[in-house]
């Protein structure tokens, strides 16, 4: 079905290429077109609860029927790419906001600027007020100055910590800046002894390092995302601090695979600080023993000098360029962006809302563990908006692990990171240079 409707500008050879890669079968899965129904792809838990939210929407707009297709997170990225290759993209989809640059590079997404500003007549009164959204989160959806997604929920990283152990070490409040934090970690290490640690920075995760790097206020890539900027003074400061935590044995040189169960270890006091995201609020409540429930808390991430920034993560809602029902899809995005609907969404999933109005909810205000996130969300920054970012971040992690295992000297780390990033960005540089020469010629 999808195969016959090939655009004239898309030679069929592309399909042959993909067929060769064995990807055609995946793309073909998107053939199941719903007749007259709006196709909405959502991932994981969000996909499960959508039916609940959509009941009211369909009552409001009886002319629109929505078909939700659930994708598991692990397969979602691949499915989006193969759907694009097979001309089978849905009308709208939930999308990790770090995936947007890639989908924009593909030309798969519809710019939303006109729709948001309401200049585009038929949208029928939009409820999306850009000013109400947390700035850092909104920014992740802007690529080269154009808007390609509307934040649906947010995800950032901050400190989960053991209040009781911090008190035993002689500190009453969580840290505001790195020197305080370091002092507290050293204090905790003295209390818990040599076999235990103060902070968990798993060697197989890059998010904590990236979060602390974003605090420096220097871009992680330079020249419009052409080269890595890891030799910059800012990143070096973060790297030195980060490595010192392993050198002083405040952080175990371990990956989360070896920890096996982080909640058990947190309960045992194997580590007292853990940089992680909002989903762990629910997990900590469920998995920590009852006697520890009063003993853990969350706090915004400390920065080099005073409260620091963190990663602006989360999911956005995006419209596909190929959709023939953009107005209807936009109506659904507007509906899902209403503060009241977002509050309901939070109740169902525990996902934190991206706009301030939705945080005016009594239940959310009463939730002490979420309040640190409210505070942190005022200080979140986007990771570099290039399709190659995830691969670069993975290389940062790999290089860091080599340093911890003593296979690379700490002094060589920044240049090695730059070298790897520059290699990954080679094609991007070629593309950018080509477009600029073409523009100059025209």
């Amino acid at each position, binding site marked *: 079905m999808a195969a016959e409707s090939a655009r004239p500008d898309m030679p069929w*050879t592309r399909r*042959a290429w993909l067929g060769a*890669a064995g990807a055609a079968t995946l793309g073909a899965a998107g053939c199941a077109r719903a007749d007259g129904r709006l196709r909405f792809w959502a991932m994981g838990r969000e996909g499960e609860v959508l039916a609940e939210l959509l009941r009211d929407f369909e009552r409001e707009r009886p002319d629109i029927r929505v078909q939700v297709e659930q994708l598991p997170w692990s397969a979602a990225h691949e499915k989006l*790419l193969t759907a694009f290759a097979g001309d089978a993209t849905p009308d709208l989809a939930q999308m990790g906001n770090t995936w947007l640059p890639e989908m924009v590079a593909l030309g798969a997404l519809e710019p939303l600027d006109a729709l948001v500003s309401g200049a585009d007549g038929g949208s029928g009164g939009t409820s999306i007020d850009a000013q109400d959204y947390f700035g850092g989160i909104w920014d992740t959806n802007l690529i080269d100055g154009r808007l390609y997604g509307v934040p649906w929920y947010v995800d950032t990283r901050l400190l989960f910590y053991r209040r009781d152990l911090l008190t035993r070490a002689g500190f009453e409040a969580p840290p505001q800046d790195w020197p305080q934090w370091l002092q507290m970690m050293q204090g905790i290490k003295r209390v818990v002894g040599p076999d235990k640690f103060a902070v968990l920075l798993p060697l197989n995760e890059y998010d904590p390092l990236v979060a602390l790097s974003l605090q420096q206020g220097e871009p992680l890539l330079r020249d419009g995302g052409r080269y890595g900027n890891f030799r910059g003074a800012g990143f070096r400061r973060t790297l030195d601090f980060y490595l010192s935590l392993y050198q002083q044995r405040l952080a175990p040189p371990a990956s989360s*695979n070896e920890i096996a169960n982080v909640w058990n270890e947190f309960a045992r006091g194997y580590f007292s600080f853990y940089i992680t995201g909002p989903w762990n609020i629910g997990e900590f409540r469920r998995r920590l023993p009852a006697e520890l429930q009063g003993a853990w808390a969350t706090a915004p991430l400390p920065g080099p000098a005073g409260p620091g920034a963190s990663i602006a993560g989360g999911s956005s809602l995006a419209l596909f360029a190929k959709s023939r029902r953009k107005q209807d899809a936009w109506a659904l995005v507007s509906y899902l962006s209403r503060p009241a609907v977002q509050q309901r969404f939070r109740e169902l999933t525990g996902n934190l809302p991206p706009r301030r109005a939705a945080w005016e909810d009594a239940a959310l205000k009463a939730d002490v563990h979420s309040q640190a996130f409210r505070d942190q969300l005022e200080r979140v920054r986007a990771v570099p908006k290039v399709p190659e970012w995830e691969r670069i971040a993975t290389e940062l992690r790999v290089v860091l*692990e080599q340093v911890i295992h003593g*296979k690379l000297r700490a002094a060589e780390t920044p240049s090695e990171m730059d070298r790897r990033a520059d290699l990954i960005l080679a094609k991007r540089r070629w*593309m950018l240079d080509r477009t600029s020469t073409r523009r100059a010629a025209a």
Partner: protein
Amino acid sequence: MKKRQLAGWMFAGPALIAIAVFFVVPVAAALLMSLTDFDIYALADLRNLRFVGLDNYTALLANALFWQALWNTVIFVVLGVPLSIAASLGTALLLHSKFTRWQGFFRTALFAPVVTTLVAVAVVWRYLFHTRYGLLNHALGAFGVSPIDWLGDPAWAMPAIVVLSVWKNFGYNMVILLAALQAIPEDLYEAARLDGARRWALLRHITLPGLAPMLLVVGILTMAGHFQLFAEPYVMTQGGPAQRTVTVLYLMYEEGFKWWSLGSASAVAFILFVIMFAITLLQLHVSRRAGTT
């Protein structure tokens, strides 16, 4: 004569067409792709596709991670294949013995790991391998061996994967070898016993020669399977620690399906193919020479 030829082609035709469509064409296309820099940008617009000749191959050969992956794979094959076949042969011999009771039960129990899901098994093994609470370190501790960080120590991660893989897969070869054992005629043993052969001589001069063709097949299949190690590191270590469990196939998966560098991923696939093809030829050659002497 001509008519018979035609009939022959017509009989073989459907199979040949299937082979052409599902094997020759994709392989040729993948070979072509390995000569390009096909990636996410090329997916967006084919004008972004560059023909790069052998650049993917030279880049791979210059990539330390590729050599690391190849080395990791070789370690896995060298450790895993003999261990796995020895375990299969040993258990098959035990099961075949007349003195073994409850043969049906043991056969099922030993075959069970083959049919269990690796993902579920991985959860259990992650606990068995745990540095502080793991059963394995507990048992070693009884002999005074200090705890080993199985999945976290770069030196031990691959041996840990070997242990898991041998446990998971030996049952399959065991069943094949068991069938081959049962096919060795009993009168050979009887005759040998009349000639005064002891147990060891029976094994060496009757059982093993009788099994030789099957052992060769099992050896080639096991080796081919081991070169394609992917699932175990994928679920246990994600290639870590320090990339010591990144195998060639794992590298290909990351290049192709994680980073969408399909050109480079195809090049990895072809290098792996060439290596495996060469080793299988060598194995056949060696066994043929061993068979004639």
